[in-house]
């Protein structure tokens, strides 16, 4: 049987009228899609290597290149997608687990797109954010039961949006530097992920949440002391239940030094923390960290949104966590098995709603802040998540898109043309942290301004008043059980 040639996903179209053969595309493509043939004085394409990152398209000085999707087509079939067919072919050839990057791209109901916001009309006035102060300041941490009790340590955010955990190893130091600088300047937090805290990022430590994951990479007492808060990672939305995996290609000298593993070996984070086999063990680790840092900073826990997320979150709050991060099925990653990324977990909208509801019912909602994450695409998603019960949100994919990512989902190859998901020095140079910091700062600024506009439209002048305020939301085209789980009415129903 002849071996099947895995065909192209993308067509690269070169407008010969515009192409000046400057060869910038030839030099820059890390996948060697373009190459120059001096004999014929022309630039030839190897389209099957194109991953659709659009770097050449954006770089071309005359705009001569267009990258278009072309998934090889099979006969029209409602059940079998072309992608399914070609995935099986790939597995037949390699016998391996299909890997992918970024967040789930499967067709699940987008609950955010079925939720609409309120606006003030007549009964209470709108507030104009350009003329009146709007409070977006958010406090993350345990709130006391009584107003006279001492306040436990809090994180102060100038906007309810933070940069999520993306480890040094999965992304480049320049990418981390961009986000760290932007978070520092805007007054919000960024997260180290499980790859440790590189010393060049220490100037931004005032705004860092450090992660203690099962591999315990880079975790020592200085790491914990430098941080503003500590996050114990139990799971993430892209790959609930399995551990982290950084392919050996991406473990170079610097990664080896920061994570303390031999160069070229795969950096494996085991699935569970091997000292956490029950909720009591989690409580033990939370208090071990609190003891080690003398109760001076919030210690929280990050879990993936799974079926029983509500009682699990309740247990975590009772175990002493000061904040709980819930990562939905759309959460991104540098590398995960495709089947897990696309099929494991639940959407964040439902998870946030049920967790918030459950904690309120148990009377412990004040004991931990709730942070939602998992594929927020716009400030509208953010504001809806807050109205469903989150105190703040983490953005990951959106932050990387602001740095140049075009969601080609090939992060695990370490050949990211944008210099984001790679350690190759040829590629990481391309991400200038000064430009990256400006762009991600702009993203925070743009979304914060939009949130203010939407709040003003609702007649609310502080984000706190929107928190868990389900009355400001209505569902459109949702079933009764969905409305019940989200805790919102259907559009058309009044008070």
């Amino acid at each position, binding site marked *: 049987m002849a071996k099947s040639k895995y065909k192209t996903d993308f067509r690269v179209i070169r407008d010969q009228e515009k192409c000046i053969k400057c060869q910038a595309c030839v030099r820059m493509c890390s996948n060697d899609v373009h190459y120059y043939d001096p004999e014929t004085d022309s630039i030839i394409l190897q389209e099957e290597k194109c991953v659709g990152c659009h770097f050449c398209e954006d770089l071309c000085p005359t705009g001569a290149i267009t990258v278009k999707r072309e998934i090889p087509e099979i006969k029209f079939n409602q059940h079998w997608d072309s992608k399914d067919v070609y995935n099986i072919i790939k597995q037949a050839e390699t*016998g391996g687990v299909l*890997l992918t990057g970024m967040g789930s791209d499967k067709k699940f109901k987008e609950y955010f797109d079925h939720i609409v916001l309120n606006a003030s009309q007549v009964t209470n006035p709108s507030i104009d954010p350009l003329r009146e102060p709007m409070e977006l300041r958010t406090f993350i941490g345990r709130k006391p039961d009584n107003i006279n009790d001492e306040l436990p340590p809090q994180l102060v955010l100038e906007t309810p949006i933070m940069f999520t955990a993306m480890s040094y190893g999965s992304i480049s130091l320049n990418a981390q530097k961009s986000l760290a600088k932007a978070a520092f300047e805007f007054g919000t937090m960024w997260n180290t992920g499980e790859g440790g805290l590189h010393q060049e990022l220490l100037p931004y430590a005032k705004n860092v949440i450090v992660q203690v994951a099962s591999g315990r990479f880079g975790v*020592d007492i200085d790491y914990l*002391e430098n941080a503003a808060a500590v996050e114990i990672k139990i799971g993430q939305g892209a790959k609930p239940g399995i551990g982290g995996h950084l392919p050996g290609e991406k473990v170079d000298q610097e990664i080896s030094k920061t994570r303390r593993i031999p160069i070229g070996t795969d950096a494996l984070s085991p699935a569970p923390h091997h000292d956490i086999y029950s909720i009591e063990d989690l409580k033990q*680790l939370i*208090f*071990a960290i609190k*003891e080690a840092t003398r109760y001076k900073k919030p210690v929280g826990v990050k879990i993936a949104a799974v079926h029983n997320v509500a009682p699990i979150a309740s247990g975590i709050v009772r175990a002493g966590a000061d904040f709980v991060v819930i990562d939905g099925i759309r959460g991104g990653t540098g590398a995960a*098995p495709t089947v897990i990324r696309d099929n494991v977990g639940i959407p964040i909208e439902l998870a946030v709603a049920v967790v918030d509801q459950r904690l309120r019912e148990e009377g412990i909602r004040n004991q931990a802040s709730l942070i939602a994450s998992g594929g927020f695409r716009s400030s509208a998603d953010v504001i809806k998540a807050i109205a469903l019960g989150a105190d703040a949100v983490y953005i990951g994919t959106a932050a990387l898109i602001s740095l140049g990512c075009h969601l080609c989902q090939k992060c695990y190859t370490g050949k990211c043309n944008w210099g984001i998901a790679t350690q190759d020095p040829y590629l990481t140079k391309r991400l200038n942290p000064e430009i990256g910091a400006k762009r991600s700062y702009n993203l925070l600024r743009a979304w914060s301004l939009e949130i203010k506009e939407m709040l003003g439209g609702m007649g609310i002048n502080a984000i706190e008043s929107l928190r868990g305020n389900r009355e400001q939301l209505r569902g459109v085209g949702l079933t009764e059980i969905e409305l019940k789980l989200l805790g919102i009415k259907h559009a058309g129903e009044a008070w």
Partner: protein
Amino acid sequence: MKEIINAEGLHYKELNEKIHNTLLKDSVDEIVLENVVGQRYIAAGLNKKVRFIINGTAGNDLGIFMDGAEIFVNGNAQDGVGNTMNSGKIVVNGSAGDVIGYGMRGGCIYIKKDAGYRVGIHMKSYKENFPVIVIGGSAGDFLGEYMAGGVIIVLGLYSDKLPVGDFVGTGMHGGSIYIKRKNIDERLLGKEVKTKDLSKEDMDLISKYVGDFCKYFSLEQKEILNENFIKLYPYSSRPYGRLYAY
């Protein structure tokens, strides 16, 4: 200067508070804790070069995130001894529980008698930061799981049975495990691990750490070192290289 703290009737939070307040005095270089009955997190995150003498049973997560202190336990220790420890020394004159030295990054742990499951998981080393665990008795299943660096030595001094359990070194991709026996059943080993005989460097390494071990527990070094040891090592740094379709 030495300080004595009586742990009787104290919750771990109070005990650790007392320890920290005592350590605020620069002159204190040794603390003796009396009547310890399983209080947790003693010396958690401690990065001062002080010495602790613990009389009693040390509770869970003894010396977690520790960086440089020395702890001597006259009694048993529980789970999580030296969890994510960066440097320093923990000597337990008794047995210890599970998950010893999880994610350990440097320093030494000496256990006179037995240890539990999952000892030395994901130990890591980088250049001269090198963690070492020496166990005088036996260790349970999953010894050295996911090990990425450092050394584990299991002596099995108190019984003729094999001093390790199932799944030894499963997922190992760095470091070495030495067991004081002539041979070991291959079925017990993780699939990333192979055995080999010791070289002179290996023997020198073991002599050093076994020497320290004997010093702490007043045992005869010569007797222990006269028998065969086997070495377990990861034969592939990329045991999962063929697992994924790129």
